[in-house]
């Protein structure tokens, strides 16, 4: 009997205003449906973060919540230990921004230190990016997969030399209107789209699970048709 695979939902009350908690549910269910035991551990500020998580998920939130989350995660320290031990971090929107070196908050653009897990910096963009987004992700096997979602962010993110973009933008703004979307550095992945993005793009969910388990997962027939229905509808909508 092996221990269940632990999916850690980091600070739902701070980094969870856009439904991004769905990402952790999608990850856990896609393991369970393959017969692999999985649990979602919801951690709130003040509670100790488990250091033995397989995947740590963070979502979108407001400016003050970002500052609080960085302060609490730094104080706790377990996230850094988990990343050093090979855990996967999947961070969306505000969660993506705080994984970087710096980000800004408020109307006066105060600069705040991030967690430093991604070599990216975020500053306020000229116009807020709000709307459906479609990007092209090149999978490890070289094949291309469309990622669809809904972006809603005022910050624009620029990548440093240690981070590489997750995908190329077909429709929408992405990182900073420069054609790139998201960032990857080791096993830390940041991205802007909500949806939640893993519910809209099950192949990305399976990619994260493969990374966390260090093995390729067999395809999952269950729920495939409903995913295909949603992808067809959303991709046609954003391209029309």
């Amino acid at each position, binding site marked *: 009997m092996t221990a269940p695979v632990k999916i850690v939902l980091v600070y*739902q*009350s*701070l980094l*969870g*205003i*856009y*439904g*991004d*908690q*769905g990402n952790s*549910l*999608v990850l856990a*269910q896609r393991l369970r449906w393959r017969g692999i035991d999985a649990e979602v551990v919801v951690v709130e*500020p*003040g509670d100790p973060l488990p250091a033995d998580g397989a995947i740590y998920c963070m979502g979108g939130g*407001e*400016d*003050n*919540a970002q*500052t*609080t989350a960085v302060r609490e995660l730094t104080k706790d320290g377990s996230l850094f230990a988990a990343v050093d031990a090979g855990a996967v971090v999947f961070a969306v929107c505000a969660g993506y921004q705080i994984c970087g070196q710096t980000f800004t908050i408020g109307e006066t653009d105060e600069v705040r230190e991030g967690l430093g897990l991604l070599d990216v910096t975020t500053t306020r963009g000229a116009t*807020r990016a*709000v*709307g*459906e987004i479609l990007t092209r992700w090149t999978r490890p096997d070289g094949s291309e997969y469309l990622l669809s979602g*809904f972006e*809603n962010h*005022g910050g624009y993110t620029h990548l440093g030399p240690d981070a590489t973009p997750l995908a190329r933008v077909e429709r929408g703004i992405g990182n900073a209107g420069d054609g790139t979307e998201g960032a990857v550095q080791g096993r830390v992945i940041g991205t802007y789209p*909500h*949806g*939640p993005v893993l*519910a*809209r793009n099950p192949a990305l969910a399976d990619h994260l699970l493969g990374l966390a388990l260090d093995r390729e997962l067999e395809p999952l027939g269950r*729920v495939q048709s*409903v*995913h295909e*229905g*949603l992808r067809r*509808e*959303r991709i046609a909508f954003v391209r029309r």
Partner: protein
Amino acid sequence: MVPVPRDLTSFDRVRLAAGTVLGDAAAWASRRLGRGSGASIRGQILTRVQPDAFRLLLRGRRIAAVTGTNGKTTSTHLLAAAVREGLGADAARLVTNADGANLHYGIASALAKAPKADTAVLETDERVVADMIAHGRPEVLVLLNFSRDQLDRNHEIKFLGRAWRDSLTAAGDAGPVVIANSDDPLVTWAAGAARRVIWVDTASTWVADAALCPNCGDLLTRENPSADAPTGRWDCPGCDLTEPQADYVVRGDAVELPDHTVRELTLNVPGKFNVSNAAMALAAAVELGVPVSKALTGFRTVRSPAGRFAVTTVNGVGVRLVLSKNPAGWAESLPLLETPTVVLAIDSVAADGKDVSWLWDVEFEQLRGKKVICTGPRAYDLAVRLAYAEVEHEVSVDLTDALRIASIAPQPVDLIATYTPFQKLLKMAGLR
């Protein structure tokens, strides 16, 4: 009775009258074309002829305004019913925007139809509150609650709270008495600027949007949850903001009054959140001078405010219509579902919010054992959510087809819809 508004120049008066006549014509045409009640178009035309219509029409009336993320329409109906009961034979003195048209145009439209009514109970959109306070000088302002809603255009929930607080500060001693939900930290912070506040402990359960102190940004603490205070008392360790001692307290289906007597509400609208809404409306009615017993009698006349909870027939299928617009609303409405087959209709045009990620903030797992018919333009988003919740479902994007599928189930079938499909269903049912 005093004709209102009484201190207008004759030029203003003529323009208001002309605008009302033209607006009426447009509203009539709109109804004939099946485009809704026409309230908004009437207000638009009126405002084009008399740009000051909103401000002028508010003048000279006793006003109670009702706002918040959820429960505005039902609370407005409850308060209006209480005031109507209080007025007795003088009920014609009351005007209210019963149709839920709560922006400047909708409010102007309702007021223009009742130039002689000197008492107004007005549902007011969150974004119109500042103008309502500045121009309407309401006697009473009801602040229901704040939660995530249409985040594609309201990026920071706190932004609206700050606007309320600033306009209450600006109004000073001329500002309204505020009826405020003491369970809601952002409402409490905003109401703190009012000259006088009546606090209502609504026994709310939605806390997902109240993690941080709206005043200082510290993490709020919660302690001692109980049946009457399911989420416990909240407090900020970093500053003075704390849950105020309530004047009115929701206790189950009853309300404890400031004198500690407990009164049963026996409402004809369902759900715990409508008990909360009624407690807020009761406090407001008392402040307007309505005796408690009359207010409670009035409440019982409210059955399907602007079509909410209406049991009706759509395309020959018996349904009960429920409106839910955001996760806090869905958290309240899902437990109301009683039928084994339910229809859930999701859209994402501007009035619904363009991002439906919020579906994942709703605990659909509680529908296991039921059969869900997913409909509306975003039916597939719901279907994926239900698949992961392991709830049996079927997708039928077209509303008419979905109703046809529902027609084989025992009726009336419970149906929850977001704003746009809800309005469509009301029209199909002939209710607007």
